């Protein structure tokens, strides 16, 4: 080890470009170098080296620990592989499940198997979003802030997740064994009834009454609700528990379908009805939207004149429709005056949502109104 020739060799090649990663040799060189200078300095050199090596080790340890914890965090939160097992289905299975979501099977003692699958429900929700978009476009629905597709996305996904949470909680309270993913799957497949009803309701919309829609609502929506009810019934025997959970499911399911239809449906038919009956109310002024709640029951179809200080027609209809709220500024900017020949002196200010060009067109064409802005 005390090989002087090696040491001299190292010293005779100061400009060497060879990287020497062998710390032992470097140590030896240093030791030799320091030992040539004097025996006392050897101790100090050793301590420095140890400190340096320890420092490097510690840095390395920290780096490794840091990368490991970062990788772990990523694998927990950013890993979609967690959801992969729930997308492991065959096309035939999805087809059968979609069909059977409208077929209530008789509940027997055996539990009705609900698969923990997320592909089918996700596709059903996306189809529902597309159909809602179609319905909103057909009805010329306008959204003040945001986009149509954004509100459709929000409504559908929020319903699916929120209603599933509510049903799961109800099942949990009633001591029914129902996994959260099974609830998600069941509610998602139940939305297929909504898709069918919305599609038929928009494509074949009748002009004046909603009887066709109500039939579909009760028929198709009812079938899906019955299917979900049989699933619940096969999991518990207690009457009270069954009523609570089935009631929750039925309420959420059917009311959501009603909401989807009426919130985004065309309102042109009602306006044309009102105009055709030629019942124009006496002078009134547009007031704050807060009064519209009071005026909800008073439509121009009635014989009684409208109450003062209440918006009518467009204002009332707009109050029924969410997201189409009349903003005071918008209403104040472009009110329309509504006057008939017999009522020349009394101008009726109707705040109709200015963006609704179909209604605007119809009202203008019927010669009943003239916009103040023209």
């Amino acid at each position, binding site marked *: 080890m005390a090989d002087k020739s090696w040491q001299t060799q190292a010293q005779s090649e100061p400009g060497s470009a060879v990287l020497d990663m062998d710390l032992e040799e470097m140590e030896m060189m240093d030791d030799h170098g320091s030992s040539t200078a004097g025996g006392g300095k050897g101790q100090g050199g050793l301590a420095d080296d140890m400190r340096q090596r320890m420092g490097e080790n510690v840095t390395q340890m920290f780096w490794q620990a840091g990368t490991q914890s970062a990788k772990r965090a990523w694998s927990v939160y950013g890993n979609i592989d967690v959801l992969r097992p729930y997308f492991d289905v*065959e096309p035939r299975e999805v087809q059968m499940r979609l069909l059977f979501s409208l077929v209530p099977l008789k509940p027997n003692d055996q539990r009705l198997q609900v698969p923990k699958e997320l592909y089918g429900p996700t596709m059903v929700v996306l189809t529902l979003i597309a159909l809602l978009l179609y319905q909103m476009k057909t009805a010329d629905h306008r959204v003040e802030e945001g986009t149509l597709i954004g509100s459709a996305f929000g409504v559908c996904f929020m319903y699916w997740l929120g209603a599933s949470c509510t049903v799961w909680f109800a099942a949990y309270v009633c001591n029914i064994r129902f996994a959260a993913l099974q609830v998600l799957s069941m509610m998602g497949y139940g939305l297929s009834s909504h898709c069918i009803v919305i599609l038929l309701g928009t494509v074949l919309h009748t002009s004046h009454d909603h009887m066709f829609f109500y039939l579909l609502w009760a028929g198709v929506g009812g079938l899906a609700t019955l299917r979900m009810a049989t699933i619940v019934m096969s999991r518990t025997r207690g009457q009270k528990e069954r009523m609570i959970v089935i009631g929750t499911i039925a309420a959420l399911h059917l009311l959501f379908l009603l909401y989807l239809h009426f919130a985004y449906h065309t309102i042109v038919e009602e306006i044309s009805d009102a105009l055709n009956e030629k019942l124009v109310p006496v002078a009134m002024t547009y007031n704050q939207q807060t009064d519209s709640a009071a005026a909800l029951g008073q439509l121009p179809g009635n014989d009684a004149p409208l109450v003062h200080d209440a918006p009518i027609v467009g204002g009332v209809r707009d109050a029924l429709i969410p997201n189409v709220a009349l903003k005071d500024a918008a209403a104040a900017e472009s009110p329309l005056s509504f006057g008939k020949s017999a009522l020349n002196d009394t101008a009726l200010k109707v705040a109709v949502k200015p963006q609704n060009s179909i209604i605007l067109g119809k009202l203008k064409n019927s010669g009943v109104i003239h916009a103040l802005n023209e």
Partner: protein
Amino acid sequence: MADVGTVDFHDEVVDVPLEGDIDVPGAAKSDDELSTLDEPVRITILRDLRAVGNKFWHVLIPKKSSVLLKEWDLWGPLVLCTFLAIMLQGSAEEVDEMKNNDGGPQFAEVFVIYWMGAAVVTLNIKLLGGNISFFQSICVLGYCVSPLAIALVICRILLAVSVDSVAVFIVRFLFVILGFGWSTFASTAFLSESQPVGRKLLAMYPLFMFYFVISWLIISHTHS
């Protein structure tokens, strides 16, 4: 020197990971990375443009190739998305009547549909077991919208040239259907290899919906 001789160095094992660059000072950088700092901007831009054009060509003449997948980029999808969003704006009369509508929501709507739709389709493909990366899939989906963009241009030309009648509507409808079929076929050609056998239908359904929604936006846009 005697004490040095008795120290046993072989027992100390230091684990030093061998990493880092072997830097020989004075030598040129290795050719693995393209150093674009030294070349004129024009050449960089032209190279990117050529790559984008090459991908458009591969989409319009669909044949099995891995160009879109190996060298993905998002320039094409961005250009197409912006083009679609601008063309699908509302008309001037609508803007006047609305007074406070600056066409904003429609632009944002197309953007949201396009990118969220692409993200959803990509997530679905990945979750079904496809071995394709996120951005590769978005690249393919974005580039395959180009036939629909061509159909949109044709529709606008038809609407500008003639009055909107049933015959014109039928012609527009046919062109849009053609564009839709072309887009779906092209994207299927690129993405089908990354899917496991038997699940192709499951992956194609959201793709079909995505192009269907865009086609429907195009066909229902009648304002000139």
